[in-house]
């Protein structure tokens, strides 16, 4: 009964929230929620996951799974074109609450500038930074979380800024975890060109089932900008309590990505991460990082 109640509340909450939000909102084309550090190595199927800061980027309620103070940093290269980096800090406030700050950034360099006749004029860069602060609280088996992010985007000499809010729930009991979140609530980006972009939110629902050393993850991302959805699947295996391996696929029908990850526990609070994913058309993505607890 408790399982049904929790998931039912999550779904009904989502429905009401989406219906309220989507009225009268002009949609931009896509959301960039994935800019923040994410677990591509497990198919990004992390809405119900319990991986602390990583998971909180998609479901703020998961920040409550940060069980010790920690720094996390990542660097990733996508398709030989895009560079991403992230610095994050997580802190449990008490047994029921935790907070995390995550500062992901993206750089695309040397974009050719051409005029209306096709003549080459020079190069410019595209910078994007989306700092985010998340806070979560656990009540019985249900965790609640929210985060707010600020977006700074600079393309050539133009800039765009905006804020957004993410909200999430996570229910965990026995071997099953359920998660749901709505991200990019109220996201609006104002550009120096005068253009104003209002994004519709994305919503996410996920489940994780774990058996001793193994976990299976699945989630669905609804992109209300594109009226599209993405199904993600992941699998995680812990070996010798020091090595966590993962594989995952992220929406093979649209986003076309699959890959795997390795997390090596040098000590209980020091973890080295590496993830590799392959995009069917765009090529390889590599991501490496480290988590240091104190």
């Amino acid at each position, binding site marked *: 009964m408790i399982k049904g109640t929790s998931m039912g*509340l999550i779904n009904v909450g989502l429905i009401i929230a989406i219906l309220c939000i989507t009225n009268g909102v002009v949609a931009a084309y896509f959301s960039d929620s994935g800019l923040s550090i994410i677990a591509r190595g497990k198919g990004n199927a992390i809405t119900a996951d319990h991986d602390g800061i990583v998971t909180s980027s998609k479901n703020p309620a998961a920040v409550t799974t940060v069980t010790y103070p920690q720094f996390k940093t990542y660097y990733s290269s996508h398709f030989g074109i895009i560079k991403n980096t992230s610095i994050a800090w997580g802190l449990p406030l008490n047994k029921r609450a935790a907070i995390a700050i995550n500062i992901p950034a993206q750089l695309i360099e040397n*974009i050719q500038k051409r005029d209306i006749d096709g003549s080459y004029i020079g190069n410019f860069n595209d910078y994007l930074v989306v700092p985010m602060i998340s806070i979560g609280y656990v009540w019985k088996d249900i965790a609640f979380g929210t985060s707010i992010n600020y977006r700074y985007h600079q393309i050539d000499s*133009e800039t765009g800024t905006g804020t957004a809010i993410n909200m999430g729930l996570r229910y965990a009991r026995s071997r099953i975890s359920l998660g749901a979140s709505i991200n990019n609530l109220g996201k609006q980006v104002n550009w120096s060109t005068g253009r104003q972009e209002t994004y519709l939110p994305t919503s996410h629902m996920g489940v994780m089932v774990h058996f001793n050393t193994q976990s299976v993850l699945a989630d669905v991302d609804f992109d209300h900008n594109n009226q599209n959805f993405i199904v993600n699947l992941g699998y995680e295996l812990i070996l010798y309590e020091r090595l966590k391996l993962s594989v995952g696929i992220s929406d093979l029908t649209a986003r076309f990505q699959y890959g795997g990850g390795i997390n090596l526990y040098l000590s209980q609070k020091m973890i080295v991460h590496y993830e590799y994913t392959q995009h069917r058309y765009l090529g390889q993505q590599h991501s490496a990082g480290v988590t240091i607890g104190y």
Partner: protein
Amino acid sequence: MAIRTYFKIHPQFNYSDYFIQGVYRFRQQVSHYQFFLMGHYILGVYIAITAIGFFKIRRSLSLYWVIMLVFFIFPIHATQNQLIIKINPQNITDVPELAATLVELGLSEIKKIQHPSQSQRRSLNLSVSDHENHHSEITLIADIDNQTADHQKMISRLITNTAIDYIEKVYPLRLFSDLNDPLYEQQDYMMELSLNQLVSLPNNKTIIVAVIDSGVDYNHEDLRDSIYINQQEEPSNGIDDDNNGYIDDRYGYSFSGISSGNGSPLVTDDLGHGTHIASIIAAKPNNRIGISGVSRGVKVLPIRIFDDQGNGNQVDAAAAIRYAVDQGADIINCSWGFFQVNTILKEAVQYALNKGVIVVAAAGNANSYIPEYPASLDGVITIGSVGSNGQKSTFSSYGDHIDFMIRGQQILAAVPGNAYDYQSGTSQSTAIVSGIIGALLSARPELTGDDIYHYLQQSTESDSKTNSHGYGVININSLFSVSQLNDLAPVFQTNIDFKVREVYNYPNPIRSNQTQFRIDTNQPEFNAQIQIFTPEGQRVTTLYDRGYSGFVDITWQLESSISNGTYIYVVTLTSNNGTKVSQIEKCTVMR
């Protein structure tokens, strides 16, 4: 109750078909997204009800799986919220009124599709010059503002305007391979036999191929542009306008029963055989519809000699052959025959040969050495069937009269009703050879039947005939190594590495609602595909076009909903010999 009564009254009605059609119709109305979202909303509501204690959670999950099962069984693509409107300039009486009607119905971003360029569109400007140019076509594509609008009502209202020829919802298309015909990838014989190279041969003369058969669905979506039209004949006026002895033969003629006085201009295909044959030869390539025919330089002259039961006789066939010759056919395709022959048929074939018309006929599907006619007549090019392994098909007849073999098994081609199907037989082999000859003649109109026979012979592996394979299997690559056809070979550039000289978009950053992608290569002709992705790898759109003289400019019309930012695009180019090259670049939207 009413439904049950209906099925009792109509026992022939298939209940499962009714259900499936209903689900299909429903799936056609909603997108993947809407369907999936709907499923999860229902699941959420059910689980909420479960929580109150009305149902068991197992039932909720069962319902969920049923919904998802239906979703995956019926994965129909959603229609886009766009309408395509063709306007007849001659009937426009009030330009402002028409424009006002379009806007009033919630249509925005109305753009004019430019001809002949496939990809360029510009903003709608129903100017006086357009109005006065009665010979130009105006085809508009319009976004529907209100996504919940009743499209059918909208179409019904617009179609009453006499200025509008047709109005339809825009459906999506997908490119599968180097030819952009969506079913091309299933035409494995095209690649296997290198027939795709023929599609790019120059079209120096339109060759008429008479398909004497069970008729042709000349309105088929993939054939209607490849049908020979007798311009001298007005349709359905009951008058023999061109004085050739046949009334209303604008789209060919039916000789089925003409020996009994029952000829007619109705060449519709009740059996599907003739349509299949015609489309193998001439289905329009690179039109993003259906399949690709072997030759783009031919027109099919439909001539029917079989009734709807598949019955025909040699007197009718003889008259059909003479008609084909007199109408100017260059090639006559005979995918039929019999073990005995009437003199009248012999004479008709000789009449064709004397006029320089090439007659191609099927060996037959009896797996017999007994010759069939007209295949066994002197001067006729006789075709047998092999499988994809090059071995004689079990059904294919054989004997000394066989000239060449080519694949005739599992050939995908058009059938009546805008449909496509696989068929096998020496009929299909014959059609492929007719297509090959048509492509060669179109590129080199000066060639004679003897020349072509000689070149086909040189393309095979054998210098002498065998009882089972004739001269053997026609090899297209060898055909172009024949010295007399060498001038056609450079078209394929098979020996040149496919290189992309330059790929970029301009202007960049994109500050308006369109940009051009410039692709410069070392290949005279190629197919270009551009897939545009977000930095996270989510595909935004896909653009297609064909490059000529080494380059192509492809226009991307940006919707207003495309947000500012940098996008990654993958350019995939396919040469005529199937070589693919790709390049990744980036473009930036800044509006």
